[in-house]
């Protein structure tokens, strides 16, 4: 019962802040709402039993990526807000309508699958994880079954790091 209340409260906050992120005029406020959003998402992860991921979310997302966004926002010093004039080429209303249509469709799919419960997905028979604790489980999987994606992800991060440095340098 308490879990359900917590879940609904956290979900309401997440959605509320997300709406605020995309609708605030001031960019800095937007970024701050994004941070709050990520913190609530981390709380949701803890509720769902993924503590390691919650900590990683705060560390990487809220503490790293959004700081980066904040830096860029401050470096790109806005003289006039870009929403000041509306572009005739841009069909904003179509965008809204399409999004609402997709949402309605997704809701319909969800309702349909609730009415007819999907066949229980055979829980993939992994080798029984000998260690308990969330972090050990994740680590175990990362280093044994998913080693190659792990290495590829690290290569990707390396490439992204080099790319970001090259892009942001003033003179090569």
């Amino acid at each position, binding site marked *: 019962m308490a879990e359900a209340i917590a879940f609904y409260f956290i979900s309401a906050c997440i959605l509320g802040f997300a709406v605020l992120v995309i609708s605030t005029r001031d960019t*800095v*406020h937007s970024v*701050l709402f994004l*941070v709050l959003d990520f*913190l609530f998402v981390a709380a949701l992860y803890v509720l769902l039993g993924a*503590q*390691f991921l*919650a*900590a*990683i979310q*705060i*560390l990487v997302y*809220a*503490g*790293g990526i959004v*700081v980066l966004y*904040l*830096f860029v926002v*401050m470096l790109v010093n806005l003289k006039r807000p870009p929403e000041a004039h509306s572009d005739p080429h841009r069909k904003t209303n179509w965008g809204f309508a399409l999004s609402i249509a997709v949402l309605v469709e997704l809701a319909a799919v969800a309702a349909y699958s609730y009415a007819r419960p999907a066949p229980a997905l055979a829980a993939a028979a992994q080798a029984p994880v000998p260690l308990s*604790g*969330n*972090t050990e489980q994740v680590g175990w999987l990362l280093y044994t079954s998913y080693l190659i994606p792990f290495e590829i992800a690290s290569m990707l991060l390396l490439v992204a790091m080099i790319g970001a440095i090259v892009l942001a340098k003033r003179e090569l």
Partner: protein
Amino acid sequence: MVDSFVIPLLKIVIVLNATLVAVTYMVLLERKVIAWAQSRLGPMRVGPYGILQPVADAVKLMIKEDITPVRADRWVFTAAPIISMVPALIVYAVIPFGPKITLFGRQVSLYITDINVGLLYIVSVASVGVYGIILAGYASNSKFPLLASLRASAQLISYEVAVTLTLVSVILMSGTLSMVGIVDAQYNQGVWYIFAQPIAFVLVLIGGLAETNRAPFDLPEAEQELTGGFHTEYSGMRFALFFLAEYANMIVVSSVVTTLFLGGWLPPFPNTAPLHFLYAIPSWVWFFLKSFCFLYLFIWIRATLPRYRYDQLMALGWKFLIPLAIANLVVTGIVKVLL
């Protein structure tokens, strides 16, 4: 009911109050120690030997006029000191002051909680603390604080990387992320990690100095640089909050270093029989003794070393500490596998 609700609440209240009192007295301690290092006496007028100086400071700061710059962003301006203070305080939830002891006929563990990602929690909360500084500089709506805050936050996130990498090698040695687990591992392995991982200890110490904006890395907030750094426009209670946050951060770093490297509440060489008489001293006394040593070390360093220039600072973080941390990690991994 009592066990799961009242006792943690009581612990939280005690820890918070103790922290706030400790932080205010840190101010006095720092002034005294730096004064003695400079052959003078420090605050002596208020109370015997200046003991009541923090009270005078607190009263002064509270009755000071609270100025908000005209075109500053009101919400962000008010929120920034809070954002700076909260991470410094909530880290205390996972720091273990001692093991389970029996108090009033009840088993009470001397830490508020023990989550199984304790160390990761501490690092993530530290990375959220950066926001307070960035927002303080931005919200002041004037050039100098903005530049100073950008510098400060760049410094913080750089040293965060070095510290996190170093902490991974500690995790390798202890095999668990929970703080109590790390202390237990030091007990089981019979040795404080400062002897097993001296390089990591030095790295975390230097990183901790840089993370809390302490000398010799206090360029962002020194009075001679950029007219006072990111808290130039703050006055009264908000300024006090920033300073308290900095001292609270210092105490947090001391406590974390104590737990990770000096065995938390364990006496030296915890598992050897001849030294068992050291257990007569209660565990939390050991903890506070060791933390106090580190606090003193921080103040001592501030009184002694000159300040790093900004580019020297960043070069130190990126070009020296991070490679050293990675090398330490690799060596630890290899040794762990071979042994």
